[in-house]
């Protein structure tokens, strides 16, 4: 993970079978090592990935600790009802759409981000796929570089760019298009720009991986049959890069939904997403069980989205091969 969105995985357990490994060859061979060498890593991941998730699940059914740090071991469903109702001091319950609104916001930002990324990624992926091979490798590497730089710094860069004195407002004012700076920073717009910037490579790379395998003789055949450029693009090229598009949508949508830094630094509190509320519960708001319940909700949504996309991908494509996080390397 490493940054929200540091590649979301579509682990490729199947590819191992696919690699011409017959059952007989899978038998242990001299010197190939054996399965137990994986045990330490296995145990480590269980302790530091699985256990934390289990603890969050448990915490989400416990009561708030007196001082707010940690939990009180007393079963309750309050963290989940808090999602929809707020409790007044007198103990009365009333419907409170605050958190629903934030969840809806998160979806909305993630959807816009995915669409913008898709629109930008298809042309560049196709363009990359049609470059000469040597140059292509270098260009694809150039697309991945920003991904390997600090997410914090990449997000911060938009504070510089979008602020009232920043280069965009400066340029527009210098040209005389505007007199007063347009407020861009600390708006939902800034959040979405930050999200698009963060996740764009995740859309470009899988689509490129599909486009690279596209057989351009098919396009030539379509031209020969009298199709124009746009028809070829729409009817021949796009359908064959669909596996890449689906992978890209997963890789962008899921981490975008759980983003913390872009809304935190660029949204200015007006465009909080689920992750910001979770962070607040473990920080200033001091309500760990509620934060845990929100995390469980976010995890469930993430898994549901994965399942939906997996079903779509299964229906839509013949074997996709790579195109997941491995295309980053």
């Amino acid at each position, binding site marked *: 993970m490493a940054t929200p969105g540091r590649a979301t995985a579509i682990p490729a357990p199947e590819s191992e079978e696919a690699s011409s490994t017959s059952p007989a060859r899978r038998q242990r061979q001299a010197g*190939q*090592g054996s399965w137990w060498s994986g045990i330490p*890593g*296995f145990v480590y991941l269980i302790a530091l*990935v699985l256990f934390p998730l289990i*603890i969050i699940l448990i915490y989400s059914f416990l009561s708030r600790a007196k001082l707010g740090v940690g939990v009180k071991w007393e079963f309750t469903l309050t963290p989940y009802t808090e999602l929809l109702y707020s409790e007044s001091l007198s103990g009365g319950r009333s419907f409170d759409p605050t958190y629903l609104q934030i969840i809806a916001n998160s979806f909305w930002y993630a959807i816009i981000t995915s669409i913008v990324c898709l629109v930008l990624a298809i*042309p560049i992926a196709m363009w990359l796929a049609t470059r000469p091979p040597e140059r292509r490798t270098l260009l694809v590497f150039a697309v991945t570089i920003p991904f*390997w730089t*600090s997410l914090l710094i990449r997000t911060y*860069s938009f504070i510089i760019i979008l602020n009232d004195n920043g280069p965009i407002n400066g340029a527009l004012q210098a040209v005389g298009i505007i007199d007063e700076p347009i407020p861009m920073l600390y708006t939902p717009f800034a959040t979405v720009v930050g999200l698009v910037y963060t996740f764009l490579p995740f859309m470009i790379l899988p689509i490129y991986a599909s486009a690279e395998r596209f057989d351009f003789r098919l396009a030539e055949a379509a031209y020969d049959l009298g199709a124009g450029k746009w028809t070829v693009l729409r009817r021949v090229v796009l359908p064959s890069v669909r596996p890449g598009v689906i992978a890209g949508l997963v890789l962008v949508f899921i981490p975008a939904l759980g983003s913390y830094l872009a809304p935190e630094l660029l949204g200015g509190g007006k465009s909080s997403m689920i992750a910001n509320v979770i962070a607040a519960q473990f920080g200033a708001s001091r309500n760990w069980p509620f934060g845990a319940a929100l995390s469980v909700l976010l995890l469930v949504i993430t898994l549901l989205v994965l399942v939906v996309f997996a079903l779509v991908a299964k229906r839509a494509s013949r074997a996709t091969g790579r195109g997941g996080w491995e295309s980053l390397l």
Partner: protein
Amino acid sequence: MTQESLTRRSRRGVGAGLRDFPTFRAVSYIVFAFLYLPLVFVVAYSFNSNRVVSVWRGFTFSWYSEVLGNDAIQRALFNSLRIGFVATIVSVVLATGLAIGLLTMARAGRTFAWTLIGAPLIIPEIVFAIGTLSLFVQSRIPLGVNAITLAHIAFCIPFALLPIRARLRGVDPAVYEAAADLGANEWTIFRRITMPLLAPGIVAGALLAFIISLDDFIVSYFLAGPGGTTLPVYIFGMIRNAITPGVNALSTLMLIASILIVSLSYLLARKRR
């Protein structure tokens, strides 16, 4: 399509023209600008002599000396490096074991293993951060540098694993058989055959793990405690308090480090393919 246009096309051969779509080149240039201009601005404004970062006044190097001479920043850098080195070494050892183990693991085990390995990448980072925070608080492991290191190892494993596994899968099993036929035992084969063949993958994986650890903010932020401030956590504090070109100077140094390391990793991974 007219006969004339057909001949024109065929004369040009199965050429670039047919493969290009209008506006795609322009969009591509714009996207590349979009990907790199923000980083260019970060670097450019690190030389700004004005305290207000985005109002340019003049050229100076002074932010770099100010940042590098700052005690708190040096401590944060030391923490980051220490966490990065330990997390890298441990995650690479675990990942190498996993890569070798995955080859011979039974199918069910392999699916489970891949789910676990991929999980740190799918789980929203905030959830992983507060999950490990809860785990450490629950099991009374003190927050700080060591807590951060423990968590970093977990999400460095998948990044370390990829190049190692790619390398391992490229090895012809016949080399092991040959070594065994010549009388080498398992340990000798591992030491003399497997490790040298995997070495470029292991170094590439280690470099990736190191950047991932070095650049991590969210997990470190929640696990830092009083003494565990890492460089990104420190930068976040600077951004929150007062943004000066010093933030840019520090960011520029981190950008350079990341880009150098990933380029090195990339070159190693491509080697002898």
